[in-house]
Each structure stands twice: as structure tokens, then as C-alpha cells.
């Protein structure tokens, strides 16, 4: 059992839970994730990225958007409550070194896993430019935390309700056109955003790392559900990733695979709204 020591609602759909997990807090490094299960008997196992950790307090911070059954259940848990199963840290840590200027692009909930990576890049001595994007002002998360790290912070929203009215690819393109151009880009967010970030940097030859969040069951290299096509080869997100060369990832295949259980997920989504008494959120993304 993992006690929830802090709970915050960051936006309509986004929650932050600080959870007791001393071993994970001690071992985790930027880029890694956990598998969470709300109950052992019939719960599903879902991967969630680790947004932060405090080894001294023995806690990890999870930030997630309510999309499926488990995220709804987690969102309904009170402070002081507990999550039954948390496994981790999983995946290969981000390769962090001093390369010069690093552009970190986070879209929506992708800002959460980007946070420890940006932190690590800064600590390694890089100049860190951070671009965060969301559909609207209410969905912008971790702006203050990112500002504290960034040498330069650009916020943009789809509707212009906060920062620039732009998609993250617009400032990313401008940054690539600067001289000198960035030495590395890290893009984390919805697959479609990562795809277009990779397309944006490709003509400038800026190496671009993306972090993939796929369907997973065990998360330890056993089920193969997380496989993706990278450079024409099959790779496993849980043990080969989650980070890959964005210029090599077959995003179209990734997006198709993410929709494998779509009809079932929609059905469960309806059901858990009824069961948990959660009001339908407006403007929920499919």
C-alpha cells in the first residue's frame, strides 16, 4: 500500500498525487515511470510517468490526466488514502549530459515527465529553453516550477488564453532558426504533438528525443504490448525506452496501436462516471 501524502487538482482534468514509495523515490532517475494499479483483484495496470521525487521524504509525485478507469479512480482517492500497487522505477533513465542548449517541449500532461528531465539537463550545465503548451490557460501545469528551471520559458495555448496563441511547434521552429541552433530537443506530450515536433526539428538536423507512453501490462519486458516501430525495427518501450529518437519513430503506427481498446475504454469511461459519481468533464479529448 502506498499512502497519498498530498493531493492537488492542477486543472479540470489533471491531478497531482504525492505518494509514499521510498525505494522508488531513492532509485528513480529522470525519464523513468511507474506502473500503478488501483486494486489487485480486477484493476488494470497503467504506466504513469514520475514528475518528481523526494528521496528524503520517501515520496514520488505522479501527475496524470483523468482519461480511463484507473485515472478516474486515482483522482477520486482522498489525501491520506492509499494506492494498492505501485511498481518501479521502470524504463531506461534519460541520457543526461552537457550538450549546450536544450529545448524542452511539453504539451499538456507531458509537462509532468518533462519536469525532472529539464531539471537534470539544467543541473548538467545546459542552457535550457522550455516551451509548454496546452489547449487553454486552465490546462497549463507546472508553469512556476518550469520557470524556476528555465533560462527562457515560452508558454503557449491553442486559444491564446495564456501566453502566445500558438501550437508548440511555432516557437520550436523559431528556436531552430536561431543561431546557434539548439543542440538537442526533448519533446513530450500527445503523440501527434511529438510527431509534429520531430517534423519541425528534422530539417534543422536538431536531434530530438521523445518519450513514449504506450499500452503496457507488466512494464518489465514480458508482454510486448508496448512495442513500437523505430527506424523500421520493433522496439519495446518498457525496456528499450521510453525515450527514442523522434526522427525514427513511426508515430502513425503508435497512434493506431494506442487505439487498440478504444471501444472498451469508452464503455468503461461511461461506467466509471456513473459509478464514481464524477460529473462529465466538458471538452474531454477522445
Amino acid at each position, binding site marked *: 500500500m502506498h499512502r497519498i501524502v498530498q493531493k492537488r487538482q492542477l486543472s479540470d482534468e489533471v491531478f497531482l498525487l504525492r505518494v509514499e514509495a521510498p525505494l522508488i523515490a531513492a532509485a528513480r532517475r529522470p525519464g523513468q515511470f511507474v506502473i500503478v494499479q488501483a486494486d489487485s483483484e*480486477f484493476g*488494470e495496470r497503467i504506466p504513469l510517468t514520475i514528475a518528481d521525487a523526494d528521496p528524503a521524504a520517501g515520496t514520488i509525485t505522479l501527475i496524470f490526466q483523468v482519461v480511463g*478507469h484507473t485515472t478516474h479512480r486515482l483522482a477520486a482517492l482522498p489525501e491520506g488514502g492509499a494506492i494498492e500497487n505501485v511498481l518501479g522505477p*521502470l524504463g531506461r533513465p534519460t541520457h543526461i549530459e552537457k550538450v549546450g542548449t536544450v529545448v524542452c517541449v511539453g504539451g499538456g500532461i507531458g509537462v509532468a515527465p518533462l519536469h525532472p528531465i529539464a531539471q537534470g539537463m539544467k543541473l548538467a550545465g545546459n542552457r535550457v529553453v522550455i516551451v509548454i503548451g496546452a489547449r487553454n490557460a486552465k490546462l497549463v501545469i507546472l508553469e512556476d516550477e518550469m520557470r524556476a528551471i528555465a533560462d527562457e520559458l515560452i508558454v503557449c495555448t491553442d486559444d491564446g488564453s495564456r501566453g502566445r496563441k500558438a501550437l508548440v511547434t511555432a516557437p520550436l521552429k523559431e528556436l531552430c532558426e536561431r543561431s546557434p541552433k539548439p543542440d538537442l530537443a526533448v519533446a513530450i506530450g500527445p503523440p501527434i504533438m511529438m510527431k509534429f515536433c520531430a517534423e519541425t526539428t528534422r530539417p534543422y538536423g536538431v536531434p530530438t528525443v521523445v518519450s513514449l507512453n504506450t499500452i503496457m501490462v507488466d512494464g*518489465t*519486458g*514480458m508482454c*510486448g504490448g508496448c512495442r513500437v516501430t523505430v527506424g523500421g525495427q520493433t522496439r519495446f518501450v518498457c525496456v528499450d525506452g521510453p525515450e527514442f529518437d523522434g526522427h525514427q519513430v513511426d508515430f502513425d503506427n503508435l497512434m*493506431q496501436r494506442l487505439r*487498440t481498446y478504444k471501444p472498451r475504454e469508452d464503455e468503461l469511461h461511461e461506467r466509471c462516471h456513473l459509478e464514481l459519481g464524477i460529473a462529465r468533464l466538458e471538452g474531454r479529448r477522445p
Partner: protein
Amino acid sequence: MTHATPETLEAEARAQLDALLARAEPLKAKDRLKIPPQPMPSQPAAVRRGNIEEVALGFGPAQARLEALRCWQCKNAPCIEGCPVRIDIPGFVRAIAENRLEEAIAILKRNTILPAICGRVCPQETQCQEKCTVGKALKDVNAAVAIGRLERYAADWEREQGCAAPPAVKPETGKKVAVIGSGPASITVAADVRREGHAVTMFEAFHKPGGVLLYGIPEFRLPKRIVELEIATLRAMGVEIRTNFVVGRTRTLRQLLDEDGYDAVFIGAGAGLPKFMNIPGENLVGVFSANEYLTRANLMRAYDKARAHTPIYPSRKVAVLGGGNVAMDAARMALRIGAEEVHLVYRRTEVEMPARVEEVAHAKEEGVEFHLLQNAKRILGDEYGRVKAIECVRYELGEPDESGRRRPVEVKGSEFVMDVDTVIVAIGNEPNPLIRQTTEGLQTSRWGTILADEATGQTSLERVYAGGDIVLGAATVILAMGEGRRAAAAINAMLATR
């Protein structure tokens, strides 16, 4: 085929048994040969396709005694040679024949700690029963004494009595052993090491212990309550079980030895990444490894659609690629999940199939269609990237290869397309990569299996032992248990001198 109920089979056996027991003169070999092999009572195929309950129901008491009376009690006992853990087979079979069940189970437990499981899942026809003199005399391995079914009978009897006491544990030695994984090899090591009085911690990555017995082998072949009972026995012995703990990530193997005070480590981490065919279309939506499909169905209980939150792909026509037990399990599970048609595609013939004979027979009875001497060449998708068909090619058997099996050769130009919406790939696993990747100095083979001494399980690292699929590649429960036995003995011997 008509289906005999368990009651009918037991009544028939009872009449024959009574007649035999009423005879004054002892049974001769030729009398024993005349006793018909006892059929395993089972759920009717049409019924069991629609449920997840165990298919084979187990012998009744008269059936068990009658089957046991078929044994010749050979002095040289070739069956023992066929058993990876050298169970005294004539001994326990005789005890059943003479209705001394407590003695039967005691004999079994001298060599195996998991008789209820091995009796169900061992490939007996290539082990003990292959060597059986009765089978040889009848020129049919399937007419050998049903050793596995008798083993199951004795173990089930003991469980139903509720008299299985956990093995005695010697006084605490103050030494600590870490066991990585909770499958058959690890369960064996945990029990055997704990018996000597050493503290044992078992680390399992999943949220429930049991390994392949839980996530891999389906309920209809191995009820989970049997696995849970074995785990409960370990707990009763004082073994600490830590779930949600993946060695290599949560803590490294080195940390367990150097910082956490473990005197020895046993690696029984089992199978890892599923193998795929490396054919076009394998990452389409609707293509699954058998590992994933079965884990969803078994461990995550996706078959219970009303309660489980883990989804499973809704299939109408399924192709399963492979011919082993896992392929049979996946095919039969797909039927139970609701598929209308399940096609098993295997590139050799039924003779070469590595699956247990009983599983092949059960799969056929349940309506799995076998496509032998065929192989998948390409998987075809629709505009949404979902599987819509599979292109296969026919094979014929050529010259024998190094394994002695005739090598299948592709028949040029014999390609054809089969409409399916789901493909399950069941052609085996690579060993789990995590420990290899995170443990310096641990020597592995070029296939990624951990190199370990055959007699002791000792790896290239001091105080580190390994066994089961992580060493053998894909093997069986009984072989994993045998390796666990040897490794535990070596660990106990090493700790005695430390």
C-alpha cells in the same frame, strides 16, 4: 464422440475394481494389461468452451486405484529415469493401488514440492510415461500408466483433506537469501532454503506471486486456487513475499548483496520479451504476443468482462501461430473470450508439436482448427491499421535437421490468404533482459540466458545462483523445479560454511 460423465466413469471403474479385488490369486502382468486405461473425466467440450473452469476433473477413487493397478511395478523402474526430479513412481503408484494415499503423497513429496501442479502440466508423454513398460507392451505411449493423473489424484486428495501441513522449518540461522521471481523454480528454492532455517525474501514484479503459473497457464488447465495454496504454504513457513518489486530497477542485484545484507541470491526471473516472426504487419492493431494475451486473460482476469478493468481484444476470427502449450492455451482462451473461429497455424505436423498430447486433443475437441504444414508470411491490415487477414504459405517435410525433426520446407507459390481479425504469436520468449542489463559481471549466453553450473546453478558471480527459464530458455515447470532443487541444495551447502 459421446461424453461419459465422471459418475459413469467412476461407476464402471468401481465394478471392475471390485471384481479384481475379489480375486483370490494375485494379479499377473497380463491381467494388468487387460485393465483398460482410465479416461480422464472432463467437462464436455461444448460446455467448457463457454467457461473458464478446469477442463480435466480428475479421477474418482475407483478410477485411480484401477489405473494404479495397471502398473507392473518394474524392478528397473524406467519411468524414474524419465522423471526430471526422479520421483519414486512405482512406489507412489503402488500406494494408490493399495489405497494408502497418505503414503502416496509422502513418497511424491520426497522429490517434488508441487505435485498438484506437475500432475496437471508436466509433459508426461515425453517423460515418465514415455519410458513406461506398460505403454511399450501396448505399443502406445498414450496407453502407458497415467502417472501424471495419479500424481494429481494424490495431491488433490491431500488438499481436499485439508491436512497438508507446511514443511517443518529448522531454527533460524540468521542468514538471508533473496529469491528473484515467484514461478516454479523460485517457489522450490524458497521452500528448500527456508526449511534449513534461513530467512527468505521472494521478490515479484507483478502484484501477485506465482509467475508463469499465474499469468501464463490458464485457469482451465491449472486453477489459480492451487497456485495460491502453494504460495500460502510458503508464507506459513515464514517466507517473506514482496510484490511490486523488480530487481534490476527497484533495487539492483548488487544492492541486495552489498547493501541489503542478503547472503545469497537466486535468479528465477523467467521468460522475457516475446519472440515475433519478423514478418511484415506484426505491429498492426490486433497482433498480440501470447504472453500479452494470456496475461490479460489470466492474471488480469479479462475473461470476467463484467468485473475486470483490463480490456481484451474482441475477436471473431483468430489465428494463433505456434504449436506449443502456450499456443494451445492462447487458442483455447480465445474461444472462451468469445471468438467464433480459432485457427492454429503450425509449420510442421502434429507429431512434431511440442504441446502436451492432452492439450492438443482438448483444443481439437473444443473446435480449434489446425492448419498444419503452413506458416504465416505476412499480416495484412485495413486503413485503420487493424488486422484484416493473414497470408500463409504451405510447407512440406524435408530432410531431418540437427534436432532430428524433419525440416519443413516452403512450397514455392503456395501462398494463400485467410481472413482473420486477430493474430496471436506463440513462438516462444527471449529470457528476461532486466537483470542481465543491470548486473555487471553476470555472464550470459549469446541467447541472453544466464550461464549457470548444471549441478549447482552457480553463476559467474559469487553467491549468485540461477535456474528455470532464465537459464534454460523456454522449458517446463518440472525442469524449473529440478533446477530450483539443485540450486537450493548448493545455496544451503554454501551457507553452512559461511
